[in-house]
């Protein structure tokens, strides 16, 4: 099997999944989506293991492509599986579920296209197409807020991405081609135009990746979307956009303006992380909190990409392990949404008493995304910090350390309160004080007895969290090697 064939399978599977989902037969959409997602995971695994880098027709494959495509297809697979559980709770829906699966397939397809295609114009196109395919998914639950969030998402992201199209045009007007494989071996003909192209790409793709100050849509979309979609957004959509940015950014490596651009990008990355890290601790809505955590991670990944060296390796590790850990966090938060029907933290206390496994999973995945040691995110963050140290930028190192600590404390303090807090909510206190009201027990359910949880809803986040852990452990020797080699 040639690599082109594999790439076609990788892309064709979700595309055909989208078409099959529309068949008017009950259940076919779930099965086809699952099967097609599994096929694309297999295809991307084979590409990851066996295929060399290079240009294949319209496609360009290198290490980053391979890692992004396996991440995207894996998150896609788990999200489809989780949707089967999650959609049961939705009563009034914006879309038929058939269309939901269809759009989800298309969403995955556009992201896979963005990371495999060779032409920068098509990269832009695919990133923009992810907006089209995913906007309606946010509005799925058809509430005032979710539609508003979807609208903001569509408008802000499309308006921002226009700027990155400008960057594509600038690249073309300077270099005369948009083929990434050609551009890579071609020194910038007009350095200033290319530098401006990088700046525009930062603003444009940064809007989609939630880089401050263009992040206004991000927390809304993440908190209002159904959990599987939030997971896909946070885990793979944002890195896909950063990937698109890095494709333009690397073209300038080794030129005289590169140092300035590096500083610019690092500035944006640090600002994003800092803003997110400060806001995380003050959130009242746990899905928004997770969204800000994604933002914080994206900022750091952006810094890693800008720093180069082992920063890039760190960024890649962080992208992958963050994807799996954050999707686990969103899936387990989906369990809580399904159980409590609210996303307000104040309404949820002592998850552990009612949803035991979900509580543990949520805590662990929150620890993981904030960079607790055995998980992959820790390695990534540490490598980026090391690279900052290595490049002699001590201030940056210190700022990064502060951000890690701040975000870690901010996020985990809130989750701990939520998960392990006493299950004494207002209603139970009231009922104990006013015996007349005791019939109105909290939502009429038993307080202390843990509920039997849906096996699927536990298994999927568990797998993802496991993968994040495995990455952390598997990469550890490489990490040690890289860090010790620094001296």
């Amino acid at each position, binding site marked *: 099997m040639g690599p082109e064939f594999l790439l076609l399978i990788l892309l064709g599977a979700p595309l055909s999944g989208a078409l099959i989902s529309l068949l008017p037969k009950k259940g076919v959409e779930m099965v086809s989506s699952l099967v097609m997602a599994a096929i694309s995971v297999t295809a991307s695994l084979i590409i990851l293991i066996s295929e060399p880098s290079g240009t294949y027709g319209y496609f360009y494959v290198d290490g980053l492509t391979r890692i992004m495509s396996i991440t995207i297809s894996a998150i896609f697979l788990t999200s489809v599986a989780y949707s089967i559980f999650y959609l049961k709770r939705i009563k009034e829906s914006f879309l038929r579920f058939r269309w939901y699966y269809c759009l989800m397939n298309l969403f995955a397809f556009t992201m896979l296209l963005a990371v495999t295609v060779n032409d920068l114009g*098509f990269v832009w196109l695919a990133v923009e*197409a992810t907006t089209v395919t995913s*906007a*309606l998914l946010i509005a799925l639950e058809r509430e*005032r807020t979710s539609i508003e969030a979807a609208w903001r998402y*569509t*408008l802000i992201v499309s308006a921002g991405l*226009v700027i990155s199209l400008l960057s594509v045009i600038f690249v073309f007007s300077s270099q005369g081609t*948009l083929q990434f494989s050609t551009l890579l071996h071609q020194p910038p003909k007009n350095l200033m135009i290319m530098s401006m192209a990088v700046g525009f790409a930062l603003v444009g793709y940064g809007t989609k990746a939630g880089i401050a100050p263009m992040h206004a849509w991000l927390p809304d979309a993440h908190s209002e979307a159904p959990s599987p979609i939030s997971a896909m957004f946070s885990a793979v959509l944002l890195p896909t956009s950063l990937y698109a940015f890095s494709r333009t950014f690397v073209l300038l490596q080794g030129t005289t303006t590169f140092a300035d651009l590096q500083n610019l990008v690092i500035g944006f990355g640090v600002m994003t992380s800092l803003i997110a890290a400060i806001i995380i601790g003050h959130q009242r809505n746990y899905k928004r909190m997770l969204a800000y955590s994604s933002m914080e991670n994206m900022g750091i990944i952006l810094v890693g990409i800008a720093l180069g060296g082992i920063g890039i390796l760190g960024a890649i590790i962080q992208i992958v392990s963050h994807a799996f850990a954050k999707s686990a966090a969103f899936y387990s938060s989906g369990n809580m949404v399904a159980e409590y029907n609210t996303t307000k933290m104040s309404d949820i206390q002592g998850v552990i008493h009612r949803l035991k496994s979900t509580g543990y999973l949520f805590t662990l995945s929150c620890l993981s995304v904030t960079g607790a040691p055995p998980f992959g995110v820790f390695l990534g963050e540490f490598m980026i910090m090391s690279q900052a140290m290595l490049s002699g930028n001590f201030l940056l190192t210190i700022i990064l350390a502060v951000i890690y600590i701040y975000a870690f404390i901010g996020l985990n303090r809130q989750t701990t309160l939520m998960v392990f807090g006493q299950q004494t909510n207002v209603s139970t206190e009231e009922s104990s004080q006013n015996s007349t009201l005791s019939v109105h027990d909290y939502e009429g359910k038993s307080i202390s007895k843990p509920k039997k949880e849906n096996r699927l809803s536990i298994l999927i986040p568990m797998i993802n969290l496991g993968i994040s852990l495995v990455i952390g452990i598997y990469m550890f020797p490489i990490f040690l090697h890289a860090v010790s080699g620094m001296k």
Partner: protein
Amino acid sequence: MVFVVPFYEEIVGFLGISVLLSSLYMQGQSFVDPTIRAIAIQSLLITALIVILFLHTDDLNLLYLAIITGVMRGIVFPLVMLYQVKHFRHKLRETGTSQKTPSLVLTGIIIIIIGYAIFKSVVLPYFSNPEISIPFVLLLLGFLLIITRKNSLTQMCGYIQEENGILYMGALIAPGIQLLTEFAVVLDVMGVVIIGVILSAQRDAFKTLEPSDLDQLSG
């Protein structure tokens, strides 16, 4: 065949300024219908501009591009949006903007001046043709339209205007950009417009906007 266009520079300059004028007209409109018509006219003006460029440079890609632009942005998108206006008559006029329109027009002009000043000092030295400041300014005006309005369809018009600016700039500085890319971009914009129309219809279905609901979307 190279066809010499008489008064090429003047026509291009005039069309460019007309595009800006249509943009300012949209800034000064508080009704939705005329804004949509203005975006149609603006797209057609840009189509005419691309046709002139085609006659000047004899690059067939530009002709195809003009056809796509004229049909999609000049006719299809506005019709899609006008169709929606028909169904929501109560959204015809944007409340709260009608008193502000003259100042919005002047804001637009100030944006043009600032945009031009920035453009001239930062970007222009590296390009040969000064006309590309018009699309750049058009882009900024599109942003202004999106920022200052609350009506979904007007904001959609602002988005199309931004895309128009990009198209215009692309036609001027990178005429050879792959046709396939352009075509796909147009399809993509259409996707955004359709999604926008669907969502704005849904937004309109909730007529009252309760602050308590939107409170969830803050922070």
